[in-house]
């Protein structure tokens, strides 16, 4: 639940969560176990194909929600179910309370339903005098604690067995042992009389199948079966997004949902209900059955060209399971009701801007969620888009506006960077790091040393350094990105060295500017668009075979985001398409285009670890190239744990949420140290800034090099042509 009024308060809550040792450990072991379990569950399956099919089928349903609703209603009513449609959360709660009142209900049992969390149904019913009992074990526990879930599938994952034992001792007024098996049985037996006495059962539904008017519940505990069997009245509260045309659509999703949620091939129970079934407890011998569909903004969403895809979500929770931030802070700080990446987005649409405004800033855009989403939702992109919307609605902060304005004009931006160079001089002590930052800048940044700006940016040395190539095989434009231009030009120079003498005609068009990703991360979509346009105009793609960048973040932004940012402009569309197609990252260029071989290097067998930048491995799907190059270069590649987990940089993220950035970095560096490496290689200057700065602070001697540097260091001499 979000209560913080601003980012400052929110950060305070995050700090408290970070201090919760149990939570951190629980989340860590979960993150690691989840990944292994998921991989095993999907082994031998075409996961991407399955996800694509799910996405397509969902998109089709979303595009005709009203039609499906009508069809469902017709068929369900023919079977004797009463079907209701609630426009708002409040209306849904009223309808359900009305059903309870009309049926003379006193006690209610519930099975797990995120939709009823969304509407805060329990609160409403309890205020009406009904006794409501959550019967899913996790929900039962958090209901007793009067708190919300911290995971969509494992609602009580933040609690320890000790806390549960204490809680159950209180409930039974008897001392309970701290033994999970026993505690589970205590819950079983405490809850059974609630089932026996209840006159109404409330469930959610994972699917509402239009063709037959059937709802389906995907569960493990079996409480959903009791909830839909014992009480004489059954109400299912269902989001309109759960409508699906046929059984086969549901069966397809069931192939992915449990595997992606908990690594199970299928859950213990899947229950398919059509119409009011036999019920001995009812005077009519049949149940009274109601299905309440909830709109609460879903129909508007379905028509939103950008955000309609959030309705594809099947609530598997995977996007939280892999999120490095969720792992640090848990669900209470990483969502309002809905949790994880999808939670950040849904909070805005279902619970409003105020609950979402801090949350959407707390995404590092690592893409881990998108890579596992059951429904192929572009989560990081949508989180940024919500952030941008909120800024459009409320106006952005002064510092954001200033930065964005500066980015907009390349000249102004570069002038600022150059004057920063002069200003930093008193703080460097002549070394490569900012040593003596005034306290006001440094107080949260002490977890890593910050590099000083380079003496001369790459662009100032280009004319001199430009290699002359007589018979070029490839014409290549370099795109430096800010960090390689102004902070680490030596890395770009190393790349130039690796390509030297291999018939690559290089150019560095001087009108290029920042790629614009930082603007997007700040929620400044318009500025990001402006900057993108400048770059596409600065580099004429028709003149080059490739547009090469040594920065993984720039590469993925130029390749993946530019078409979306600029593609709608008919005058630019063709040029942008060509531009994006030609963008390539350094490792892929060397491995796949230049095809350098073992003979090109004389490595010294240095023990080398690799960090896979988010924007390379997930953003561009480049996984093998850099690792193969490390091998070819004669370095001794030592795989480390969680190589493809984010380093915690995320550009402006690390300055906005330094505590989190520091913790993610710590984990990363621990793994690198454990690998026994002397050298750490990666593909992105942002990661290098973070990793190097962190190791420097730890006083660790492991060297951090861009892969271009690592290769340049061990090149075999090329005979001059």
């Amino acid at each position, binding site marked *: 639940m979000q209560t913080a009024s601003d980012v400052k308060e929110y950060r305070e809550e995050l700090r408290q969560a970070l201090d919760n040792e149990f939570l951190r450990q*629980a989340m860590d072991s*979960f993150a690691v176990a989840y990944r292994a379990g998921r991989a095993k569950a999907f082994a031998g399956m075409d996961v991407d194909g399955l996800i694509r099919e799910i996405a397509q089928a969902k998109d089709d349903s979303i595009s005709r929600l009203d039609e499906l609703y009508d069809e469902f209603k017709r068929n369900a009513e023919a*079977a*004797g179910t009463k079907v209701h449609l609630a426009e708002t959360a409040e209306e849904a709660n009223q309808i359900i309370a009305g059903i309870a009142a009309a049926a003379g209900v006193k006690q209610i049992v519930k099975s797990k339903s995120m939709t009823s969390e969304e509407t805060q149904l329990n609160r409403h019913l309890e205020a009406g005098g009904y006794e409501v009992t959550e019967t*899913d*074990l996790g929900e039962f*526990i958090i209901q007793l604690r009067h708190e919300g879930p911290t995971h969509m599938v494992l*609602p009580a994952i933040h*609690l320890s*067995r000790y806390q*549960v034992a204490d809680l159950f001792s209180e*409930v*039974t*007024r*008897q001392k*309970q*042992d701290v033994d*999970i*098996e*026993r505690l*589970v*049985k*205590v819950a*079983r*037996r*405490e*809850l*059974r*009389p609630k*089932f*026996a006495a209840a006159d109404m059962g409330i469930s959610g539904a994972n699917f509402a*199948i239009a063709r*037959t008017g*059937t709802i389906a519940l995907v569960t*493990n*505990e*079996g*409480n959903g*079966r*009791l909830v*839909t*069997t*014992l009480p004489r009245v059954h109400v299912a509260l269902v989001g309109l997004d759960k409508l699906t045309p046929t*059984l*086969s659509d549901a*069966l397809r999703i069931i192939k992915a949902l449990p595997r992606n949620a*908990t690594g199970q*091939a*299928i859950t*213990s*129970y*899947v*229950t*398919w*209900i*059509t*119409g009011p*079934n*036999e019920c*001995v407890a009812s005077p009519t011998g049949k149940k009274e059955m109601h299905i309440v569909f909830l709109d609460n903004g879903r129909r508007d969403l379905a028509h939103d060209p950008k955000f309609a895809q959030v309705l594809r979500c099947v609530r598997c929770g995977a996007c939280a399971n892999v999120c490095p931030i969720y792992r640090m802070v848990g669900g209470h700080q990483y969502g309002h009701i809905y949790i994880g990446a999808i939670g950040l987005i849904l909070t805005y649409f279902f619970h409003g801007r105020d609950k979402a405004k801090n949350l959407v800033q707390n995404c590092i855009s690592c893409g881990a969620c998108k890579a596992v989403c059951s429904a192929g939702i572009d989560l990081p992109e949508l989180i940024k888009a919500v952030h941008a919307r909120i800024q459009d609605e409320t106006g952005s902060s002064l510092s954001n506006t200033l930065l964005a304005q500066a980015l907009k004009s390349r000249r102004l931006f570069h002038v600022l960077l150059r004057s920063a160079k002069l200003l930093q001089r008193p703080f460097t002590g002549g070394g490569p790091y900012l040593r003596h930052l005034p306290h006001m800048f440094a107080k949260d940044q002490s977890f890593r040393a910050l590099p000083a700006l380079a003496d001369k940016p790459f662009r100032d040395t280009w004319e001199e350094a430009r290699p002359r190539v007589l018979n070029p095989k490839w014409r290549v434009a370099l795109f430096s990105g800010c960090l390689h231009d102004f902070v680490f030009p030596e890395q770009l120079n190393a790349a130039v060295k690796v390509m030297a003498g291999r018939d690559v005609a290089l150019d560095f068009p001087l009108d290029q500017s920042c790629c614009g990703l930082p603007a997007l991360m700040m929620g400044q979509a318009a500025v990001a668009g402006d900057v993108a346009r400048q770059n596409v105009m600065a580099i004429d793609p028709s003149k080059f075979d490739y547009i090469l960048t040594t920065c993984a973040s720039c590469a993925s932004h130029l390749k993946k985001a530019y078409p979306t940012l600029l593609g709608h402009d008919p005058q630019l569309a063709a040029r942008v398409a060509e531009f994006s197609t030609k963008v390539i990252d350094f490792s892929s260029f060397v491995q796949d285009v230049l095809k350098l071989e073992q003979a090109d290097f004389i490595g010294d067998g240095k023990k080398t670890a690799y960090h896979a930048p988010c924007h390379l491995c997930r953003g561009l799907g480049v996984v093998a190239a850099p690792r193969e190059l490390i091998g070819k270069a004669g370095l001794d590649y030592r795989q480390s744990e969680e190589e493809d987990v984010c380093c915690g940089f995320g550009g402006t993220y690390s300055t906005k949420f330094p505590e989190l950035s520091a913790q993610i970095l710590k984990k990363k560096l621990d793994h690198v140290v454990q690998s026994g490496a002397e050298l750490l290689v990666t593909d992105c200057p942002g990661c290098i800034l973070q990793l190097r700065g962190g190791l420097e602070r730890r006083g660790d001697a492991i060297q951090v090099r861009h892969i271009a540097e690592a290769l340049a260091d061990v090149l075999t001499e090329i005979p001059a042509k």
Partner: protein
Amino acid sequence: MTNMDELVTYFTQKAQAVSAVVAEVNELRQAFEYTVDLCDRKEACQLLLAGCEAPLSPAAGELCQRRQDKIIAAPGLDAANYQELDTLCRNKGLTLIRDDLRGYLAGIDIGLTVIDYGIAETGTLVLNSNNEEVRLATMISEIHVAVLPKSRLRQSSTDLEKELEAMMRMRPGYTAFITGASRTADIERVLALGVHGPLELHILLWEDR
């Protein structure tokens, strides 16, 4: 190996992977004997293992008190089969019931059902549960013994789509997919069986041809 043997092996492997006990029987009578024997050997209330002595609140404790005899419920059987099973139960001093399961919400020892279809790919049982007593037998029993005719075994849910669709079309209809025992991982992600439903699932593959 024939196709059927392969399917049986595949199903068995998948069902065992989710903690189901799988055995094969040649005739229904053997399944009855298995069930009676299992019940006879079983503690009166298996929750004992997990602490009947464990302190409960008064309401829950009271419901638990109502249990005495060992009870098997077999609501789905036809008259002749029910008779046969009943004789076996009497010989061992067990009680066999077929209706009014709501009177036994504290729990029964075994629920016995004959399954409609099996899905090998996931070790899943498909059971038409329109009858409330059948539904309850699979929910409130400590052990669910499920007899699965081999002729009803299929490779995947996709191969069953027509049959399932027909079950969805029943008005009303309550169809259950059952895979392994009732489970939870809600406390510290530690797997615990029997949180609300059966603690054990026994599947008897019946050579029905």
